[in-house]
């Protein structure tokens, strides 16, 4: 029985130690899993913030690129329009065969071109300087003053002159055409008058009158011829004068148009060069800003990583400090408790051993008492047996033993 109890006590002690170890290891594993889960959640949150910032930066860069590309398209379009107007002006100014038609052409086309140019430049360069606006306005006004209005006036006068010349030509031509008719009639009337004078005195005054009338007719006829000739010459001279005037006016208009065309071309070329410089500057600025943004975006993950690492290192340092302090505190608590537990365990084991020793001593004493009691009964039994009858008489037994010997 004592042996069985000792085995139970030892077994329970071992089971308790194992159970406590398992409980401690379970708590430690649970704490480790909680810390691991917390770290994973924080890491995912940081990654989400970095991803959102990167997406916003990429969206901003895309908008900037689109805006710059749109501005670039508009500038290129404006430059193309200016170039076309400039080329047209050059062609018109440098081609003599078109100078006669330049008034109508420029009056319609160039005004539209200037309006389109003005509109284009105003759209592209909303912040255009007042000086440049004034320059364009001045060009437009100069064009109207020196080209458009004189050309219109010239065209009006030229049309009237042509009409007047044409009507006068018709009259002169009619006079010239009828003059041969008038002259023979007048010449034919002269003999009739002479005949009248010679035929009759009776005719008298009538004859004389007729003669005078005939003479007058003759004179009138001659005068009519002269007038007709002079009229024809005057008409010719008038036509020549009109042509000379028209030619002079045309040359003047051509000169003005040519001069302004070159001036406009030069100004437009200057504007185009200026626009090109601005485009180049814009391109360079765009390239620089794009490179800077790309650099910022490319550097962003590294910077974020560096910041994250720095932050993480700081946090880890703080945690390490806290853990160290906790460890020291825990050590301060656990170590005495451990010593106390060890001492308690030793005392407990010692106490149990002494108890077991006491039990063994008691059992040993009991067994010795039983042995003594049994020995006393054995002595009593042997004394009784000496007095009891035997299965073979003692004398026979002695004889048998003697014979054997």
């Amino acid at each position: 029985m004592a042996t069985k109890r000792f085995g139970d006590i030892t077994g329970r002690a071992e089971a308790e130690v194992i159970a406590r170890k398992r409980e401690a290891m379970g708590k430690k594993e649970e704490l480790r899993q909680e810390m691991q889960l917390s770290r994973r959640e924080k890491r995912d949150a940081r990654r989400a913030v970095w991803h959102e910032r990167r997406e916003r930066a990429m969206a901003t860069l895309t908008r900037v690129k689109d805006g710059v590309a749109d501005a670039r398209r508009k500038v290129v379009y404006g430059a193309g329009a200016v170039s076309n107007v400039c080329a047209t002006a050059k062609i018109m100014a440098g081609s003599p065969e078109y100078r006669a038609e330049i008034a109508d052409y420029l009056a319609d086309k160039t005004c539209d071109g200037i309006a389109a140019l003005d509109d284009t430049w105003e759209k592209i360069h909303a912040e255009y300087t007042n000086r440049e606006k004034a320059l364009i306005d001045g060009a437009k006004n100069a064009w109207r003053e020196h080209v458009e209005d004189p050309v219109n006036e010239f065209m009006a006068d030229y049309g009237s002159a042509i009409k007047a010349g044409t009507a006068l030509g018709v009259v002169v031509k009619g006079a010239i055409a009828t003059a041969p008719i008038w002259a023979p009639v007048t010449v034919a009337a002269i003999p009739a008058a002479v005949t009248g004078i010679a035929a009759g005195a009776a005719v008298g005054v009538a004859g004389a009158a007729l003669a005078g009338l005939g003479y007058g007719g003759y004179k009138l006829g001659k005068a009519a011829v002269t007038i007709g000739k002079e009229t024809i010459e005057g008409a010719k001279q008038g036509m020549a004068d009109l042509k000379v005037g028209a030619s002079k006016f045309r040359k003047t208009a051509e000169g003005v148009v040519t001069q302004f065309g070159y001036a406009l071309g030069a100004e437009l070329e200057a504007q185009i060069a200026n626009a090109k410089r601005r485009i180049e500057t814009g391109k360079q600025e765009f390239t620089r800003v794009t490179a800077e943004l790309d650099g910022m975006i490319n550097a962003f993950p590294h910077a974020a990583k560096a910041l994250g690492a720095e932050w993480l290192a700081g946090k880890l340092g703080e945690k390490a400090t806290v853990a160290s302090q906790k460890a020291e505190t825990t050590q301060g608590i656990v170590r005495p408790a451990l010593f106390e537990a060890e001492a308690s365990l030793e005392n407990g084991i010692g106490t149990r051993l002494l108890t077991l020793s006491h039990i063994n001593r008691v059992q040993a004493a009991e067994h010795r008492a039983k042995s003594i009691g049994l020995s006393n009964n054995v002595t009593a039994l042997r004394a009784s047996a000496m007095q009891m009858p035997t299965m073979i008489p003692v004398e026979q037994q002695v004889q048998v033993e003697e014979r054997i010997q």
Partner: protein
Amino acid sequence: MTKQQLIELVQNVHLEENIQGLLFAFIESVPELKAEHVDAIADILQYQADFYDATADLFDAQAEECENLAANMQTLNAQEQTDKLAALKTYQDNLVAQMTKKLDELKAKV
């Protein structure tokens, strides 16, 4: 001594139960109790007494071992304590084995 007196004696002494049963059966089987029969029972009781002496020695030895362990516990480390406790358990197992062997020998003699 009569059979009844012998039976009462066997009932009053400290014997293992199986041995006691064997002795009762033996006494009942004897038609007339003779001195040899009583001597034989005295021998058996003496065997039992020797067995109790032997077990008492073993218990004393075990008690001494426990006392030594308790006295030396402060100087032993955990491994040594474990080893000592294991050795004590082995000693206990051997003690049980010896007791069993003694009893078997007694049974054989009976």
